[in-house]
């Protein structure tokens, strides 16, 4: 990283180095390194494609996901229905296109919530140290041993069962959950359980960064501590968080698919890839292709995020390459 440059420039010229234009070079560098990684670029390309499909689903999908056509159930792939129809006569391709919305939203928003919860908690724990750190970390340890899937199912059970009937302060939440087709529940469930890893990661980063030579150097030349935090600690602690968040997206997508598969995810008729597999499972003996396309969509999206995450890790921390 820019560590050696920094030492060279320490002293009177340190102020010039601190100019924003120079500082951005870490990210520009990283981006250029990322573009040289073929797998990561392909992954990024596919993710952009899925995001575009999700945004323009209304334009792209040949049919609405609400259209049932009981006269043409279980149609094999044809000109009218490129991927065939399911047991309600719904067009599988259209369901797949609308399903991208759920997966991408869950993946990105859940990760955003996780980062927004985990980074401050981890940073506070690392910065303050002492008793605060101990209490937070013991809590994290205990939550870590708690089976997360159980917690998620309990939260989902509550959101599906009690929230719609709840009044008072919970009523707006219930309304929001309804508007998002049950997605809010998935966000809350994942956000409540998965911030632990990010918090631990950030805390560890802050702890080790505090001891680095270049922080010491910056302190020695009189850079104010707030500037050290904003300019050095946080950007450097952020790189692993970006990698972890990118690699967390596919996990969230997989979790949503799994939850929808057991009927604990989004509410029908909102189409989700996991729900498509579950619906296809009933007819797998006669129409095995019904479970193929959603699984392929999940697998390709997962792979893309994994490639991108690995690429980001190599790009942001070249020292870690080939590990």
């Amino acid at each position, binding site marked *: 990283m820019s560590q050696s440059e920094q030492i060279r420039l320490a002293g009177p010229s340190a102020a010039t180095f601190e100019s924003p234009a120079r500082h951005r070079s870490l990210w520009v560098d990283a981006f250029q390194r990322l573009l040289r990684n073929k797998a990561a670029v392909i992954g990024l390309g596919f993710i952009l494609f899925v995001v575009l499909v999700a945004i323009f689903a209304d334009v792209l999908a040949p049919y609405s996901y609400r259209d049932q056509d009981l006269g043409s159930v279980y149609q094999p792939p044809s000109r009218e229905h490129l991927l065939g129809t399911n047991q309600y006569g719904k067009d599988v391709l259209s369901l797949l296109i609308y399903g991208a919305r759920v997966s991408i939203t869950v993946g990105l928003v859940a990760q955003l919530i996780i980062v927004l919860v985990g980074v401050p908690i981890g940073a506070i724990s690392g910065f303050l140290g002492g008793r605060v750190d101990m209490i937070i970390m*013991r*809590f994290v*340890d*205990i*939550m870590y*041993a*708690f*089976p*997360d*899937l*159980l*917690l998620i*199912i*309990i939260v989902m*059970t*509550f959101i599906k*069962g*009690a929230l719609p009937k*709840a009044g008072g302060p*919970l009523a707006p939440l219930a309304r929001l959950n309804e508007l998002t087709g049950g997605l809010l529940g998935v966000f809350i469930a994942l956000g409540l359980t998965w911030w632990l890893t990010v918090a631990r990661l950030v805390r560890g980063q802050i702890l080790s960064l505090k001891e680095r030579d270049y922080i010491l150097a910056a302190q020695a030349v009189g850079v104010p501590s707030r500037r050290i935090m904003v300019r050095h600690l946080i950007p450097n602690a952020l790189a692993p968080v970006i990698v972890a968040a990118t690699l967390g997206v*596919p996990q969230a997508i*997989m979790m949503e*698919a*799994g939850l929808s*598969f*057991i009927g*604990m995810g989004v509410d029908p008729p909102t189409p989700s890839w*996991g729900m498509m*597999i579950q619906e296809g*499972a009933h007819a*797998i*003996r006669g129409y*095995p292709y019904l*479970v193929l396309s959603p*699984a392929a969509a*999940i*697998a390709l999206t*997962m*792979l893309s995020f*994994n490639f991108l995450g690995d690429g980001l890790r190599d790009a942001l921390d070249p020292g870690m390459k*080939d*590990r």
Partner: protein
Amino acid sequence: MTMQQFILRRLLLMIPLLIGISLISFIISHSLPADPVAAFLSQKSMEDPVIVATFRKQWGLDRPLWEQYWIYLKNLLQGNLGVSLRTHRPVLDDLRQFLPASMELAIGATFYSIFLGIPLGVVSAIKKDKLLDHIARVISLVGVSTPVFWLALVSLYIFYFRLGWLPGPGRLDAGMELDVQANITGMYTIDTLLQGKFDTFIIAVKHLFLPASVLGIGTLGLVTRITRSSMLEVMCQDYIRTARSKGLRERMVILRHALKNALIPTVTVIGLSFGGIMAGTVLTETIFTWPGIGRYAYQACTKLDFPAIMGVSILIALIFSTVNLLVDISYAFLDPRLRTGGR
């Protein structure tokens, strides 16, 4: 610190962890505004205040929260996990009945990922960027990126419905459960062996094969990947060059000098993913109608059966910490330097 002291200290540390887990699961399950009474009484009984009050009193739901927790904790120390609201049986009995099936599945999955993943990782490190490496990479990518429930469905469809090579869902063929009634461990593969019923043993293994491999495929991918990368790192070390230069056979260098040192990260990953495997049992057991703890936990959660949820949480946390303790102990066997360190 000696090994015994280390193990003793870790075992003692489990006590506050378990108290913490029980407290958190208690708070979570009791702070939800959902009412278990509504889940268990019919609409008609709900309208009768006497029935509702009796129900609350019977299950201790009418007392203040801290008192409920205190009673729970006291019972817990005596090995009493309470009574399930759903099955009306002691939670401990339920766990005893369902745990062995899940353990059999989880241990099977772990063995499968170890015995396939480590060789795959070693081979792909030695043959870096050759065909075998690429094949191993594809396998591990598929393992990490395909939904477990989909793999379960499709493998059941192919190997059972289509090819008929493996038996369908369940732990044994239909009507055979009576055959292994004398429960010893509750794990059919072990029980049948102990009783010398080899025919039944083979059938039990056949039934176990598909769900265990599906459950373990994610771990398989991880193990392969980690073994490969840590083998690559170890192979560049000086002592490997020394071993080679003194004329040791390559086989010996790889197995004795490189692999043993490369195994520590692999063991860590296996230990950590055991938790993931236990969580994966929820989906796998549902598809393979495997009567285990995963299905029990799922049903308990959807019914807000608090005593059962807390029992399962404590049990899984206990298993998870025990596995991590075993992992830490195994470090000492893999790396003698860690035996005397001040851990």
